């Protein structure tokens, strides 16, 4: 269910992302708008700067064209008038006509530049000044005429005086007037330059201010836009994170673009669904968990689950009771920390160490309230499919009662058979005496009756002795004195017991032992007992007409020696092959009633072989025969 849920989540997320396509488009157009705005601001700023710059250029142009022309004109005028003055002087001293010609040329030059200045009036004072220049210049011209006349009429001396009294001052005045005009235009140029500089400075400052404002406005717009776009996404991310953490009470309330609104609406719908799913799942899981817990707790056996590091993962009610712990207090604690049973812990560790020990049963005795309890311990490791080790389940089954019952049973059998022994002794001796006719002669009928009693008391005697043997073995009181024995010796001894019977039955008994068969580790008497039982059984079931065959076989298989007793008797039906090793189990054949025996022999054989660390089993074919095989450890080299 969990997987299904997360897949559902994925689908919803993709839908969200699909919806995000719309949002992306909207964000794209928003970005376009934002950048257009910023672009326009930049364009406006740039054109404004251009206008300003062209203004500066215009001012510079003005200076160049108008005022500069005037300055040039005045300079030429000054040069011309100075040359005229020089021409007057050289005329005065040389009385040559050459300088007068130059004077006239310069007059033309002066007038040309004067008219140029006149046609380029830029300042309001200029016309007045030009008038002044004209007046002064005309005075200079007329003073020169006067000088020429005086020289002709009054002589050199008077001319010289006149020059210094009239001509030169008028020249100076004309020149000054012209210079004034020049100065005016020069100053005007300077002032215009200053204006241009000021304008340029203003333009720079303004451009900086406007650029800064543009940056600020652009930045603010961009920031606002980014915040506006990212905020809901961040919010959404937080909410999705919270949902991933299992908090399904998430709701988005976003005032944003239409698309974001749509998205948050879908998101809210999704969380609502998720919440319902989750609640359903949680409820179901809780129910399952409770069920599982109830089952585990209702088990009458103690269960402890530990992980690979022996940390406790689970303890059920019975486990809590017998170890006197509380599950919630010992969870995650180390096994030994919680349950101070080193013997049990060693067993668990040995199961982890050796895989093949898993499933082995152990018994453990625990003392509680001054009473001993016996438990059957089953330790099962848990592996994942990829065979990695997860942990261990330890199950303790209280078998104290069973043990007590078992003990009572053994005690009972022991007591009963014990009480049988004494009367059976006197019965046996009595029948023996009667049959020996010690008290007196017997009639045929009397003898028959006594023989019947004797036979049955012998059967009882066997039963009692087998029962006692078995109860002794089962109660673990069997004491083996294991020595290395030659198998042929044991077989020989066992066969000796049947010497007469074999002869009577004309049975064919063969002993086939492997060459160089190692000695076996066995208790001579007990293994003799087993062999006697097996041979006795075989003799009981083989044909009694001389066709009976028994083969006793011995061979080494690995560290064990296999001993088998094979006969050509009636065989054992499949359903009995396991059962015959149980107490009082006897095979009932159709034609035959049971062939006698106590029904305990094979059970005792099994216990004896088990105590030797071996196994015993039977292979059989009905009508053809049976083969009993048991194993014993071979001698140590």
């Amino acid at each position, binding site marked *: 269910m969990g997987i299904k849920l997360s897949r559902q989540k994925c689908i919803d997320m993709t839908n969200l992302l699909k919806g995000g396509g719309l949002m992306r488009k909207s964000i794209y157009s928003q970005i376009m708008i934002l950048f257009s705005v910023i672009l326009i601001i930049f364009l406006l700023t740039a054109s404004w700067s251009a206008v300003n710059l062209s203004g500066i250029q215009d001012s510079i142009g003005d200076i160049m064209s108008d005022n500069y022309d005037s300055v040039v004109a005045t300079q030429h005028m000054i040069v011309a008038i100075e040359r005229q003055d020089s021409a007057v002087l050289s005329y005065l001293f040389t009385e040559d006509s050459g300088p007068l010609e130059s004077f006239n040329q310069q007059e033309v030059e002066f007038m040309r530049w004067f008219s140029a200045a006149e046609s380029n009036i830029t300042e309001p004072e200029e016309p007045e000044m030009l008038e002044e220049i004209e007046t002064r210049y005309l005075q200079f011209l007329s003073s020169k005429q006067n000088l020429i006349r005086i020289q002709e009429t009054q002589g050199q001396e008077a001319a010289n005086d006149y020059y210094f009294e009239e001509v030169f001052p008028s020249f100076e005045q004309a020149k000054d007037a012209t210079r004034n005009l020049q100065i005016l235009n020069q100053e005007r140029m300077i002032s215009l330059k200053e204006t241009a500089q000021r304008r340029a400075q203003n333009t720079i400052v303004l451009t900086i201010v406007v650029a800064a404002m543009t940056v600020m406005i652009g930045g603010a717009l961009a920031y606002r836009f980014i915040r506006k776009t990212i905020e809901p996404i961040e919010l959404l991310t937080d909410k999705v994170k919270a949902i991933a953490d299992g908090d399904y009470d998430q709701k988005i309330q976003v005032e944003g673009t239409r698309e974001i609104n749509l998205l948050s609406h879908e998101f809210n719908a999704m969380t609502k669904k998720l919440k319902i799913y989750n609640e359903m799942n949680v409820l179901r899981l809780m129910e399952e968990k409770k069920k599982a817990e109830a089952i585990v707790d209702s088990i009458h056996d103690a269960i402890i689950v530990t992980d690979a590091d022996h940390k406790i993962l689970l303890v059920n009610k019975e486990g809590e009771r017998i170890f006197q712990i509380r599950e919630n207090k010992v969870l995650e604690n180390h096994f030994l920390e919680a349950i101070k049973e080193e013997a049990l812990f060693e067993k668990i560790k040995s199961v982890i160490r050796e895989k093949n020990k898993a499933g082995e049963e152990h018994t453990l005795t625990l003392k509680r309230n001054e009473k001993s309890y016996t438990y059957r311990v089953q330790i099962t490791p848990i592996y994942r499919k990829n065979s990695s080790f997860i942990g261990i389940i330890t199950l303790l089954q209280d078998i104290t009662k069973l043990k007590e019952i078992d003990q009572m049973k053994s005690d009972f059998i022991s007591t009963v058979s*014990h009480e*049988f*022994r*004494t*009367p*059976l*002794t*006197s019965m*046996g*001796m*009595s029948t*023996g*005496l009667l049959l*020996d006719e*010690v*008290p007196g002669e017997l009639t045929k009928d009397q003898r028959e009756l006594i023989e019947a009693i004797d036979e049955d008391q012998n059967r009882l*005697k066997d039963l*009692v*002795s087998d029962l*006692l043997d078995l109860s*002794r073995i089962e109660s673990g*009181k069997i*004491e083996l004195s294991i020595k290395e024995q030659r198998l042929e010796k044991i077989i020989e001894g066992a066969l000796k017991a049947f010497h007469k019977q074999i002869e009577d039955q004309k049975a064919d008994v063969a002993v086939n032992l492997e060459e160089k068969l190692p000695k076996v580790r066995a208790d001579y008497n007990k293994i003799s007992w087993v062999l006697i039982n097996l041979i006795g059984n075989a003799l009981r079931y083989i044909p009694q007409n001389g066709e009976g065959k028994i083969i006793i076989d011995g061979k080494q298989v690995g560290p064990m020696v296999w001993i088998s007793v094979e006969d050509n008797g009636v065989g054992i039906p499949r359903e009995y092959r396991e059962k015959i090793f149980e107490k009082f189990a006897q095979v009932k054949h159709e034609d035959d009633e049971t062939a006698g025996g106590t029904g305990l022999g094979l059970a005792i054989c099994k216990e004896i072989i088990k105590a030797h660390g071996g196994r015993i089993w039977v292979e059989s074919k009905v009508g053809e025969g049976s083969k009993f095989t048991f194993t014993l450890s071979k001698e140590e080299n």
Partner: protein
Amino acid sequence: MEKTLQKILVIEDEKNINMTLKMMLTKAGYEVFLATDGLEGLNLAMETAPDLILLDLILPKMNGYLVCEAIREKWDKKEMPILIMSAKTQKEDIDKAYQAGANTYITKPFSKDDILEQIKEYIPKEA
């Protein structure tokens, strides 16, 4: 002739066993004395000095082990063989009997032949 019979003392509280043993042993040619508790058995042993004693372990008044020990104070195993006949089959009981001085230990139930064979082993019939 009568005096030459070998004497066997049976100390056993079970009267049926006593009866059958007496009949059997008498028939086999022994002189049989019977005691039904430990104390009586011990006294009878002192009195009659039997050639062999058949002794039960669980007896009134004085148990078989004590009787055995008491007899061994006077006679050793060769002088007076003691055959324990008991329903006890535990190894510790058997060991205890041998420690007390028993020659052998026969577990019940035994047959007529079992007991006669054992007796013959310890006190062969004089030729």
